[in-house]
């Protein structure tokens, strides 16, 4: 099993962000954490990445408990960071280096890779994401879509076994969203583990094997994308769909549940 979350509770500034959460993520699967804003998806991703630690309960990564004590050991911390990559929702928090090249080289440098290998891997990753021409630009000066790609490149350069993505398509135009989804589908030949936190229900069937629905920090449901998307009552209850009021030319308005997808 890749991750085993067992009765996890996490409080942040007095608020219970996650409550008694238990779930398992098998190795090699693509998983979506679905939920409205404030449902605890981003917090769970950070817990899965060993950036936060639960108040009670536990998280195990391939059988090893993720605790503060374990992360204080260099050997464990480096091995985990090499295996697991997190792409933040806001690329501005992830891009802090002077150039795109330096940004992507940051992680391999921290891992003390040989410099010749770093240069080669950085260029390979930039070319794969079709942003090689931006390598000397300041990341902060790029467009939203370019920033997202650089943030993704800065994580993919290590070729991690597990990719954690926080709202990867948020704020992107439809074309960039589609391109990003295509890249994620291609990444690692489809054999890697991916955990995507999102409230966007479009493309779910193509991109993930399993969905977990979070509602107010608790697990509301889990199942295949088809099962989850067909359960309108669950989606409405979890604020993943809303009732959409409109008229068809006449003055009378009516409403029905409405899902936001990119199509």
């Amino acid at each position, binding site marked *: 099993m890749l991750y085993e979350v067992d009765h996890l509770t996490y409080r942040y500034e007095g608020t219970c962000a996650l409550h008694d959460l238990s779930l398992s993520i098998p190795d090699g699967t693509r998983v979506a954490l679905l939920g409205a804003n404030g449902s605890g998806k981003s917090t769970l991703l*950070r817990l899965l*990445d060993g*950036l936060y630690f639960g108040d009670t309960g536990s998280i195990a990564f391939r059988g090893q408990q993720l605790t503060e004590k374990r992360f204080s050991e*260099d050997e464990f*911390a*480096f091995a985990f*960071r*090499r295996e697991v*990559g*997190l792409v*933040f929702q*806001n690329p*501005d*928090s*992830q891009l*802090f280096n*002077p*150039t795109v*090249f*330096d940004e992507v*080289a*940051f*992680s391999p*440098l*921290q*891992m*003390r890779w040989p*410099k010749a290998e*770093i*240069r080669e891997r950085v260029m390979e990753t930039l070319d794969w994401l079709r942003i090689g021409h931006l390598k*000397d*630009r*300041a990341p*902060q*000066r*790029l*467009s939203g879509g370019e920033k997202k790609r650089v943030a993704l490149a*800065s*994580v993919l350069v290590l070729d991690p076994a597990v990719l954690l993505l926080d709202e990867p398509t948020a704020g992107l135009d439809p074309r960039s969203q589609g391109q990003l989804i295509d890249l994620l589908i291609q990444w690692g030949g489809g054999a890697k583990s991916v955990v995507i936190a999102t409230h966007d229900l479009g493309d779910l069937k193509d991109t993930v094997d399993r969905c977990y629905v979070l509602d107010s920090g608790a697990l509301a449901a889990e199942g295949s994308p088809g099962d989850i998307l067909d359960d309108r009552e669950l989606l409405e209850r979890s604020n993943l769909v809303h009732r959409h009021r409109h008229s068809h030319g006449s003055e009378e308005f009516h409403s029905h549940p409405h899902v936001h997808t990119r199509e």
Partner: protein
Amino acid sequence: MTGHHHGSGRGGFVENSIQGLHAAMDRALYAEQNASAKGLLQLLDPRVKVAALAGFILVSAVTSKLWVVAAVLLVATSLAALSRISLWIVATRVWLPTITFSGVLAIPAIVLTPAGFGLTATAQGLRTAGMLLLRAEAAATLALVLVFTTPWTHVLKALRMFRVPVVFVVILGMTCRYIMLLLETAHEMFESRKSRTVGPLTRGEQRRVAILSAGALLSRTLQLSNEVYLAMQARGFRGEVFILDDFRMTNPDWMAVAASVSLCVTLVWAGH
């Protein structure tokens, strides 16, 4: 954020100051157009530029001869011209502001006599004031030439290669980055406020808005800096930073080193 270009606007003092600071930082840190122009200094290794320009600043600081400082200013101006930096830009962005600020400091020196302050200007006072002004102009022109012909990132890397401690260089880089982000956020907050305000605000209201904005800005900045730290940790940061050093010295670089060293030594020797 992609490059903003702010007009002078009609906001309050705080808003206009933030816009001005943002535009100045933007020009200084992201002068990509100038840095990629085909001028003399753009062809040189950043390490050579940092060392040579620091050398000239040192010469103007240690000399007691007015003509030596004037010569350094002439060198700086020539370098600007040879690097395709418009002299109008040098004049308006460096000479004028420097003479304004340094002039205030230099005025008392004009009437300074060995016995104290007098009522008339003295030759010694004029010389001291001239020295102060010329030194400030020379140093500021050299700094502008460096920043306008070298991507800021390369300046930071060059500093690192001169054994300036990693922590200092990283903090300097991130400080500049976050001053920009802070100014951009502040600017967006002012724009957002403006879009929801009808008619001009009174001075009192402007002050109140500025105070409230400062609080909100501080909170956002703290949140963002916490996120950045988490992002660094997530990518393997364990308290020590490593960087790639990929500069290569070429023949023009060695020639520039030889020319700068000769000129600096000659100026120091001649002014001794």
